[in-house]
Each structure stands twice: as structure tokens, then as C-alpha cells.
């Protein structure tokens, strides 16, 4: 039998029972579609994490207390270039929550007390107005910089610079709005005020000695190469100022490490989802085998006729395997189209509480199609061999 004859014969057979062929196809469509979508999501989130590393700068370090509080005195010590030559900038933060309202517009927001360094350390840009300055920090000024989303919630499209808002009942003057950012770690829903104001006016906590305790210190190393050196310097300075002899009462996070952890978790998730998608493809393949076995039984007589007409075993095998591969390849193509459409459709959308980002690369559909053909070959071979093993005399007598 020539390849053209095999293809023609398979099409003849598949069109005999279109509904059944379509249902068998559906399993493969769903399997391939989910594989494509999940792989695109995996690629997309990996991209986003990489983007984030580049955006935040891989020279960002974070210190959090794990025992004794960190204070502004610690911050000052860390700022001393004599002890910390590898550090470029130090930005302490106090985090709290509060209610912000103007007139009858109210919104809940995370409120962070910061110093002017925060803008550079976190790579932020101003949308309108100015950031918090040193005089604001020194004078406990009641000024606020709004995240883009907060500004939008309270003022809509208006420029809020100069307007007054109330935070937990206190009057604050809006001095600026941050430019909108997308992605993980976005400051859009944040409200920034001077760190001293946050401590004395909003937090309500006090520590002995009259110093200001901070929740977290973001530190920018001079460059990526000096990150390790900077960590050592931070540890030395804090151990000295905290008079530590045994275990540290603080923890230093390397931004790269945090993102590596995220990436790892992401990869695990992608592998897990990929496995689930793979299983659905497998189930689709079993569906194909099931249909093919039914088809072999139903067409016993046809097989007998073909054998009497001189069909060899390999002709029969070729015919049935080709039918199975047609089903899975057809399902694969539809699945690829569906998967790519779905991946494109959800890209950048905010659904089920997450912003989805997907990246479609040309290798994904190629792999999916090769896999779907392989599924057809694998699950088609057994029914095909059963068909070819039929005894022509009995097959011809089959009712």
C-alpha cells in the first residue's frame, strides 16, 4: 500500500463515524491545550521573575530584625562609609496599615514610613510632584506620597498634589504620586510618609532609649559584585552595635536569593501543573486506544475483506496506526490553536486574584505536536496489531 493509499483509507474510515472521531479527538485537544497553556504560563512567570530581578536590581539587600529591634541608630551606623564601603544607600522602613479618606471617599492602604533613599533603593519613579525629602523626615512633616492605585481610588484622574487627605484621622498633604508599576512588588497600592511621622504619629509603639525602631532596612550594594562584601559589612556593623557574641538577632536577605526561592517554587508549580496536563494527554491517548479497539471489533468483516483482497499484516497495521495518529495529530493541531489562543487571551489579564503573564514560544507547539503524534503511535499500535492478527477466514464470517 502506498502512503497516499494509507492516508486515503484512514480518512475513509474516520469519516465513517464522525461523532466518535470527534469525541476521541476532544480528549487530545484538551490535553494538548492544557499542556500549551501551562507551559506558556510557566515561561511567562519565569520571565517575570527574571524581569523583577533586573527591575529591583540584584544588588538589593534586606535586613529584618529577628530578636532585638533594628533602630535608626543602626541605620546611621550602616550609612557610615568608613565601616560599610560596599554600601551605596540605606533605606529604613516602618510598615503599618491605615484608613485614608477624603470627603466621603475611603480606602484601606498599606502605609510605609520611609526616608528619601527609598526612592532610589527601590528603583521608583515619580508620576507627579516630589518624593519625601530630608526636611520632611526631620520635622515629622505630615506629608504623603501616594501609590498610583491609591491616588486613582481617591482622586480618580485628578492630580492630587497639594490636596489634603486624612490618614487615621490626621491631616496629610499630598506631595506627590508614584508612577504606576506593574508586576510583583508593585508600590501602586502603597502610601508613603516620612519614617519619623509613621513612628511617632501612627505606629504608637515606643522602645526604651528614645530611638526609633524600624521594621526593615533595604540596602543597596554598590554593584552586583560587591553584594557578598556588603553582607559581611552589614553583619559586622550590626553585631558590633548590638554587642552580639552568639546568635545574630537580625537576618540579611539577598534579593537574588529571595527571587531564586520564588523561581524554584514557580518551577515546582510548573512541573506539577505540567504533570497534570501530561496526565490529561495520557487519558486522551487511552481514549483513542479505546475507540480504536471498538473500531477494530466493529470492522472485523472489513478487515477480513481487505485481507482476502491481499492486504498484508503491515497494510492493516499501517491503516489503523495512521487512523490513530490522524486523530491525535488532528487533536494536537486543534489543541495547539486553542492553547495558544488561551495563553494569549489571559496574558496580562487580572483573573482569579492574580495577574497572569504568559509567553508563547515556537518550541512549545512543536513539542506538543510531536508528543501528540507519539501518543497516537503508542496507543494506536496495540489495536492495529490486534486487527492485523485477525484470521481472515473468521473475520470474513464475522457478523
Amino acid at each position, binding site marked *: 500500500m502506498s502512503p497516499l493509499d494509507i492516508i486515503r483509507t484512514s480518512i475513509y474510515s474516520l469519516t465513517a463515524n464522525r461523532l466518535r472521531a470527534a469525541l476521541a479527538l476532544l480528549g487530545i485537544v484538551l490535553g494538548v491545550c492544557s499542556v500549551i497553556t501551562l507551559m506558556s504560563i510557566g515561561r511567562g512567570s519565569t520571565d517575570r521573575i527574571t524581569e523583577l530581578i533586573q527591575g529591583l536590581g540584584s544588588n538589593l539587600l534586606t535586613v529584618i530584625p529577628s530578636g532585638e529591634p533594628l533602630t535608626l541608630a543602626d541605620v546611621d551606623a550602616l550609612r557610615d562609609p568608613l565601616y560599610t564601603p560596599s554600601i551605596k544607600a540605606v533605606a529604613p522602613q516602618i510598615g503599618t496599615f491605615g484608613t485614608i479618606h477624603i470627603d466621603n471617599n475611603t480606602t484601606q492602604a498599606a502605609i510605609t514610613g520611609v526616608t528619601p533613599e527609598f526612592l532610589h533603593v527601590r528603583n521608583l519613579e515619580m508620576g507627579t510632584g516630589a518624593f519625601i525629602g530630608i526636611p520632611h523626615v526631620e520635622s515629622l512633616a505630615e506629608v504623603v506620597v501616594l501609590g498610583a492605585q491609591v491616588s486613582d481610588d481617591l482622586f480618580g484622574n485628578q492630580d492630587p498634589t497639594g490636596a489634603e487627605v486624612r490618614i487615621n484621622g490626621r491631616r496629610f498633604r499630598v506631595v506627590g504620586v508614584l508612577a504606576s508599576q506593574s508586576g510583583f512588588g508593585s508600590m501602586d497600592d502603597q502610601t508613603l510618609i516620612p519614617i519619623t511621622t509613621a513612628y511617632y504619629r501612627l505606629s504608637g509603639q515606643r522602645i526604651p532609649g528614645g530611638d526609633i525602631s524600624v521594621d526593615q532596612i533595604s540596602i543597596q550594594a554598590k554593584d552586583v559584585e560587591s553584594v557578598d562584601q556588603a553582607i559581611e559589612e552589614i553583619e559586622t556593623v550590626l553585631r558590633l552595635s548590638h554587642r552580639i557574641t552568639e546568635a545574630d538577632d537580625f537576618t540579611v536577605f539577598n534579593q537574588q536569593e529571595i527571587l531564586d526561592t520564588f523561581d524554584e517554587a514557580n518551577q515546582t508549580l510548573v512541573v506539577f501543573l505540567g504533570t497534570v496536563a501530561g496526565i490529561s494527554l495520557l487519558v486522551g491517548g487511552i481514549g483513542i486506544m479505546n475507540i480504536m479497539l471498538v473500531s477494530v471489533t466493529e470492522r472485523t468483516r472489513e478487515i477480513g475483506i*481487505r485481507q482476502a*483482497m*491481499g492486504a*498484508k499484516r503491515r497494510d492493516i497495521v499501517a491503516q489503523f496506526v495512521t487512523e490513530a495518529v490522524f486523530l491525535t495529530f488532528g487533536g494536537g493541531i486543534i489543541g495547539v490553536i486553542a492553547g495558544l489562543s488561551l495563553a494569549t487571551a489571559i496574558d496580562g489579564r487580572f483573573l482569579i486574584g492574580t495577574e497572569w503573564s504568559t509567553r508563547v514560544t515556537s518550541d512549545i507547539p512543536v513539542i506538543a505536536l510531536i508528543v501528540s503524534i507519539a501518543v497516537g503511535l503508542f496507543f494506536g499500535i496495540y489495536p492495529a496489531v490486534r486487527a492485523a492478527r485477525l484470521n481472515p*477466514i473468521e473475520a470474513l464470517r464475522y457478523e
Partner: protein
Amino acid sequence: MRTPTYALQPVIRIRDVTKIYEMGDGTIQVRALDGVTLDIHDGEYVAIMGASGSGKSTLMNIIGCLDVPTSGTYHIDGQAVETMSNNRLADIRSRKVGFVFQTHNLLPRLTALANVELPMMYGHWPNRRKRAEHALNLVNLGDRMDHRPTELSGGQQQRVGIARALVKEPSVLLADEPTGNLDTANTAEILNIISELNHQNGITVIVVTHERDVAARADRIITLSDGQVISDETKSSPLMTKGELEGV
């Protein structure tokens, strides 16, 4: 369509063929054929008769290379079949044997023409369409080529079956109860076509039947009973068959 070869070698040469079927788990043996010896020559029109269970179907399966004998030898066109693999048997079927079945056994969704082309597909034949058209013309179905089996009468369906069998120019046209499902008029029509193919085109025909009037159209009637040949009669005819020539 066949140029008669006047070689003395018979088309079908069966020597002491026995076929034993094992039933159940091998405890019961059924001797379907028991030492059958016979020669069929090019151009003969032979009927094989016998009651059901006489072994005529088994003999037909062996002649048609669908099955191989348990013992004995069988040559078709000089080729020994009994030792052939499944693939070689399929090959012999595709080149040497044209089957006509009791039920027409056409593929329902193919046109008459495509059904006739089918056996040539497995033999890698060139000019399939032209040959199929020619074969359909031979059975007077030139105007029904694009019809599907369901659009044809029983007799027409069987004629498509005959066209399909003879399109490969087989060594032997093997018909198993070809009129078993047909009414009198259609039976006559099919038998006329078979006779015509034998007389005018020189095609060797073997008809397996249990009906006397069907067998009566043949030149030679072989009767089987209990797996053995109990009679082998050749009708006297003005022209001697090659078998008779050989005997002279």
C-alpha cells in the same frame, strides 16, 4: 483478458491434502479434509459440491490461500503454498486469487469503482482506474461506476464483486455460493456472466455451491463428502478441456 498458456502444469495442483482443526483445548480433532488430490487446469469451469460439513469451505479457503493444509501439498501456478508465511499468502491472494463471496462483501461507503480498485491497492498496481473501469464494463456495469453498493440491486452488487475479483487478472476466480443470496432472475444473470467470463475470456472459475442447477453450469463437478472427493465428473463437450487433452 487472459492469454491461455498451454503449459501442461495445472493452475491448481492439490496432492493428498488434509486439514485438521483442533477444537476446544486440542482434545477433539476435526478432519475437515482427508487426503484430497485434484488438479484444475487453466480455463476450466469447475463446481465443487457437497453438503454442509463436507469440507468444501475448507477446500475453498485452502485454494484461496486464506488457510494452509495440515499435511499434503498445494501448488497454485507452480508455487508451493503450504509452507508460506502470512505475508507471502497475502501476496499470493493479491496476485493469483479473485474472490467472489456469497454476500457481496463490498465496502459500503466506497463507490463501485473504488471497491473494484481496492485489491489493486494492495498489489501496487498501476493504471488502477482504467483497469477498474474495464472490469466493470466486462460485467455490464459501465453506467453504475459511481454508485455505492446500497444504490445497486443485489445482482448488481454481486457483479461489482465479480469485477473486483477479476480486475487483477487472477489465476483463478473463486466463487463461494455466489448466488446464495439472489433471486432466480439475478442468479441467472450472475451465472451467465461467470459462464461468459470463462468461455469468452478464458478465466479459470471454481464455484463452490450446494445447488445442483448452479453446479450444472460448470464443465466439471467435483463432489466432496466427509472431507474426501467422492466424484469428479467432466461433462462431455464438443471441445476438450486441457485436463482431457493432458489425459490423451
